C-alpha cells in the first residue's frame, strides 16, 4: 500500500499571538513551529496502516518555503520513507491555490490512499482536501475518527452531532483525519539519524489562482479576569444568585 500524507507547518498554539505590522498576519517573532495537529494524526495513522499490512510506504508532502523541510524531516524521523517540498515563498491562504499544487504532485504518484488532516490548526478552513479530490476525481471521506482498509476497500466513522456515521468507500481514495484515530509517535533517536539519509525532494509549487484573501487579522477582545466567589458548597447560593441576576442565564 502506497500512502501520501499532506502536512502543513504551523505555529504552536500555546502562546498569546501578536499581529504583524501589516495587520494581515500574526507576528512570527519567537514562535515555535510543528506539524499541524490533525496532520500529525494522519501521519501516524498512515504509518500504522502500512505496519499492519506489513508492506507499503508512506510519503509526505508540504507546500511552503524552505523552513517546511524541518517539518518534513520530523515525519521522516517518525518512519516516513520519502518527503517532497513544494516550494513557494509564502503559503497562500486560499485552499484552491494550495490544492492545485498538491494535486499536480499527487496525480501520477500511484497512491492507494492520500491523507490529510481534517483542517489546518491555523487556517482552520478544512477545504484543501476537497479541492485535491475534485481535481483528481477521487472519492473523499472527510473527518474520519476511525479508519480501516481491507481487500482494496475502506470503511470509516465520522462524528456527527450526537452520534456517528459509518461510511464505506472504494480505493484509491482521499481521507482526512479527525481526533480519535491515533496520536503521533515521538521520533526515536534511531529514526532521527535515519531521517538524515532519506530522500527529501524539492520542486517548485504550481499554485492555483487565489480567490480568497486575508483582509485583516485581529485579536479577539480579551476576557475580563476571572473571579473566585467562594469555597465549597457554601458558595452555591451566591453562584445561583449571580447566574440569575448578573449573568441572566438561569
Amino acid at each position, binding site marked *: 500500500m502506497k500512502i501520501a500524507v499532506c502536512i502543513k507547518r504551523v505555529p504552536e*498554539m500555546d502562546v498569546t499571538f501578536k499581529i504583524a505590522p501589516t495587520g494581515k498576519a500574526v507576528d512570527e517573532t519567537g514562535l515555535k513551529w510543528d506539524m499541524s495537529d490533525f496532520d500529525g494524526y494522519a501521519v501516524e495513522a498512515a504509518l500504522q496502516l502500512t505496519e499492519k499490512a506489513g508492506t507499503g510506504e508512506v510519503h509526505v508532502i508540504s507546500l511552503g518555503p524552505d523552513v517546511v523541510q524541518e517539518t518534513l524531516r520530523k515525519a521522516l524521523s517518525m518512519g516516513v520513507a520519502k518527503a517532497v517540498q513544494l516550494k513557494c515563498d509564502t503559503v497562500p491562504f486560499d485552499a*484552491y491555490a494550495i490544492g492545485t499544487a498538491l494535486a499536480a504532485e499527487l496525480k501520477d504518484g500511484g497512491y492507494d490512499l492520500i491523507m490529510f488532516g481534517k483542517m489546518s*490548526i491555523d487556517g482552520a478552513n478544512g*477545504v484543501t482536501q476537497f479541492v485535491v479530490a475534485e481535481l483528481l476525481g477521487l*472519492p473523499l471521506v472527510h473527518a474520519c475518527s476511525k479508519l480501516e482498509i481491507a481487500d482494496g476497500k475502506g470503511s470509516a466513522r465520522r462524528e456527527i452531532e450526537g452520534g456517528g*456515521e*459509518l461510511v464505506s468507500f472504494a480505493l484509491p481514495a482521499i481521507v482526512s483525519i479527525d481526533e*480519535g484515530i491515533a496520536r503521533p509517535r515521538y521520533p526515536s533517536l534511531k529514526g532521527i539519524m535515519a531521517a538524515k539519509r532519506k530522500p527529501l525532494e524539492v520542486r517548485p509549487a504550481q499554485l492555483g489562482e487565489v480567490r480568497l484573501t486575508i483582509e485583516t*487579522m485581529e485579536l479577539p477582545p480579551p476576557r475580563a479576569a476571572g473571579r473566585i466567589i467562594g469555597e465549597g458548597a457554601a458558595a*452555591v447560593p451566591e453562584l445561583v444568585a449571580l447566574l440569575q441576576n448578573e449573568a441572566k442565564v438561569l
Partner: protein
Amino acid sequence: MPNVLVFAEARGGELRKVALEAVTAARRVADQVGGDVHVVLVGAPGIAGRASALAEYGADLVVVSEHPGFANYAPEATTAFVAERVKGGDYRAVIFSASQQGKDLAPRTAARLQQAIATDVTSFEVGADAVTVTHPGYTGKVVQTLRLVGTPAIVSLRPGAVSPVAKAGAGRTESVPPSMDPAAGRVVVTETILGDTKTLDLGEAPVIISGGRGLKAAEHFKLVEDLAAAFGNAAVGATRAVTDEGWRPHSDQIGQTGRLVSPDLYVALGISGAIQHLAGMRTSKCIVAINKDKEAPIFKVADYGIVGDVFDVVPALTAAVQQARQSSN
C-alpha cells in the same frame, strides 16, 4: 436579480435548528440585495412536509428532492444536486451551516463549482464586488476578515452565530428528482448512529456542563448529567483527558482538536483549563469553574469560580438550580 441559495439541513425527517439559522441569515442578505431566498431541502420521502417551516423563516422558494437514498447523508448525490441548482440560478451567495454535515458538503460543492469558499464564518457581508466574512483561526485566538472574489460566494455559517428569526417568505415549493442515485456514490454512508436524541447537541445547547479528569471515573459523569438535567437546556461536554480514558465518546470533546463551542453558559467541573481546552470554549458568554485547586488556570477565564470538591459542590448546585427553576415557573 441576484438571489441567495441556502442548503437546509435535515436529519431523521426533521429540520435541524441550523437550517433555520441559515435561512434567517439568507433572508437578511436577500433583503439587502433585493433578491429572493431559495432553499434546497433533500431527504427521504415525506421531507417535503418540512418546507412550510422554512417559508416561515424567509424561504421564497423551496426546492425539494425526495428519495429513499437520502435517508442517510449522501455526500456525492447531495453535492451533485446542490451544484446543479447553483449553476441553474443567479446567486450572489450560497449559504451552508458549518455543522458536521455542512463541513463536508460546503467544500465539496465549492470544489465542484471551483468557487471561493469561507468556512465556519461568524458573520458575513455582501458588498458590491466581493463578500467579506469573519472567520476565527489559530484555535480562536485570532479573528480573520476574509475577502471572497467571484460569484456566487460560498460560506458555511458557524452554528449559533445567527439566531433564527421568523419572517415569512413567499414559500413556493418545487419538487425535483435527484441528479444521481443517492445510493450509487463511491462514498456511501451505510448507517447513521444516533445517541440519546433527548440530550441536546453541544453546538445547539445554550448551556454546556463539562467534566474533566477531576470526576475520576465514567460513572461519576452522572453528577454532570444531573446538573445538565437540572438546567433543562444543557448538553454534556468533556476534556480530552476524559475522552482518552473512554469515560465519554470522542464526539463530546471540547477544545483545539474537539468541538468549538460558544454557549451562553459553560460550567467546567474538575477541569484544569489547559490551553487546548480553552481554545474550544473561551468564547462562551459566561464561564463557571469548580475545581479544588485554586491555582487551576481555568479560574483565569471563569466569570465565577468556586474552589471546592466537585463531589460536594455539584450535588448542592444541582439542587439549587432545580429549586431556582421551580420557583421561577
